């Protein structure tokens, strides 16, 4: 089964769960006075779940023929192993680490680490340039966001700012 039909299957399952909530469990909490209204919080979701399930089924059963097209410029999934999947996975991991560490270790340290480790993952080995670029970017963005735009970003680790 092609990838697009697998996706359709997963989306279908999500929509069925969504539709179940809309049709059967959501209205239990509705106060009696709201039941007199022609529209309930679940009305629109009901329509959406039906529509989404119909189109997911159309894709799942291949009712709409998709044309064969040559996309030389795009990623060819059958040759996925020839691409830098490892690098992509590490960088995604770095992004997750950044999200988790941003608050605890502060903006400056986490951004510096993200930019240097990101370049390192992609094969950069000129450590001095890496460090200079990361320091300038980190400090510049922090100044822009915190001072110019006035959006608070905790610069230092938690223990340095007294929690």
């Amino acid at each position, binding site marked *: 089964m092609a990838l697009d039909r697998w996706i359709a299957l997963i989306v279908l399952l999500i929509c069925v769960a969504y539709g179940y909530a809309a049709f059967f469990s959501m209205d239990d909490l509705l106060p009696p006075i709201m039941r007199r209204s*022609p529209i309930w919080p679940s009305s629109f979701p009901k329509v959406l779940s039906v529509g989404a399930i119909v189109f997911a089924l159309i894709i799942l059963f291949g009712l709409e023929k998709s044309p064969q097209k040559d996309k030389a410029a795009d990623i060819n999934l059958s040759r996925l192993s020839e691409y830098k999947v490892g690098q992509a996975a590490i960088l995604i991991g770095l992004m997750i680490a950044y999200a988790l560490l941003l608050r605890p270790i502060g903006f400056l340290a986490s951004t510096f680490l993200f930019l240097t480790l990101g370049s390192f993952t992609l094969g950069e080995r000129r450590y001095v340039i890496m460090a200079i670029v990361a320091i300038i970017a980190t400090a510049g963005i922090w100044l822009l966001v915190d001072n110019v735009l006035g959006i608070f970003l905790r610069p230092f680790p938690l223990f340095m700012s007294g929690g």
Partner: protein
Amino acid sequence: MLEGLLLGLSTAFTFQNILMVIGGCLIGTFIGMLPGLGPMSIIAIMIPIAITIGDPATALILLAGVYYGAVFGGSTSSILINAPGVASTVATSFDGYPLTRQGKAGKALTVAAIASFSGGTIGAILLLIFAPMLASVALLFHSSEYFALMVVGLSAIAAFAGTGQVAKALLMTFLGLIMATVGEGVLFNAARFTLGIPDLQSGFGFITLAMAMFALPEAIYLILDPNRSKTADGGDNSEIKELRISRDEAKSIAPVIARQSVQGFLIGVLPGAGATIASFLGYAVERNIAPKDEQDQFGKGSVKGVAAPESANNAACTGSFVPLLTLGIPGSGTTAILLGALIALNVSPGPRLMVDEPQIFWAVIISMYLGNLVLLMLNLPLIPYIAKVLAAPRNFLIPFILFFTLMGAYIGQNNATELLLLVGFGICATIFRFADYPLAPLLIGFILGPLLENNFARAMQLYDGMGFIWERPMTLGLLVLAVVLVVLPSYRSRRARARAEGVADGD
């Protein structure tokens, strides 16, 4: 109209606003040249900045400048290194890059600059003439027509997705609408579909979703395929000679620019079509109507092949402001993001905009002329220097793109959970892209979702049921149109296929 123009002139020609246009164009051009950051992502990045400005007219002028700059910057990288950073400039690279390899990069860039300028300017004139007309029609619209109109817009987006893609585009639209129902709605003060997670109480952040749908998948593609951002054969594109175009060339591209500016504008006005389709259609039309000997030149370095998509996509950018400003319907993913920004700034685009806040409406139109002028002045002399930014090594470029998507999501919400959502949705979006699912419908559905539901609910309450569908002829007409838009392309492709098969059998 004249007093409106004057009002717009007086609003736009303040020192601050002119600075905003210039700044916006500069930012847009520079970031737009980097592959992976299209106008949509750049505007999403700029929204927090625009919101802190506070004044909606100024903020919108800034964002419009960024928009034009980004579309323009995308064509620069298309021409110089065959790396269209923006979908709407893919058609530009068909002929622009061959010209670069022939050492005529300067000529290609000049043609692109002039074509963009003309397209944008003609588009702005058409906007000036047609927008008030569309707006007066729009005043006849009630909530049930709004609901129907949004259904038309969403189905038009799906219908333009191309043959064999309609079901996928519609599924993505529904997914976007479903995601929009998460969290507390406006009409019902109860949280829906939050799965008991407090962070979902206010729904998904739209900047998060915009980043996850567009910037992240492109960045992941860049990581996966190192050749994606490189020059094809390492040719030295830093030498740019032959900037001028000859008199004959000017004569041959003038009608192309005129035709494509009008056509591009009209396509841009249609919800869902947008600059990408305008550029491809413009290229295709000009190729088909060119004389036989010039037809062979297309794809091998024809100046007409650069002029057509460039004038069309800039005119379409302007055109997409018509439904946005007069009806509140975004014609493309980018204007959908602009709509989100407007709502955040407490401006509700729609037929009342011209009446309630004319200074915003006219200032934007005037700033379009200004933006185009600034872009022309920027592009012509600065091109050789601007191109140097592209030499930023991939090893540094990609971490920065990723970092900017993270910052875009974090600044908007100030919530680290949003970053995890961003990464999660980004991975999902990349997988969707692997399987050829269009991502723009999801985002447009997500942004239109609350508006669609609120108008639907209001109409239901007014008519105490579904009666509004047959009691209001315009609603019914629009809904029928929506169905036709969805059904017609697949019906026609089915008939064409049946005919083709019939011919094959006959042979």
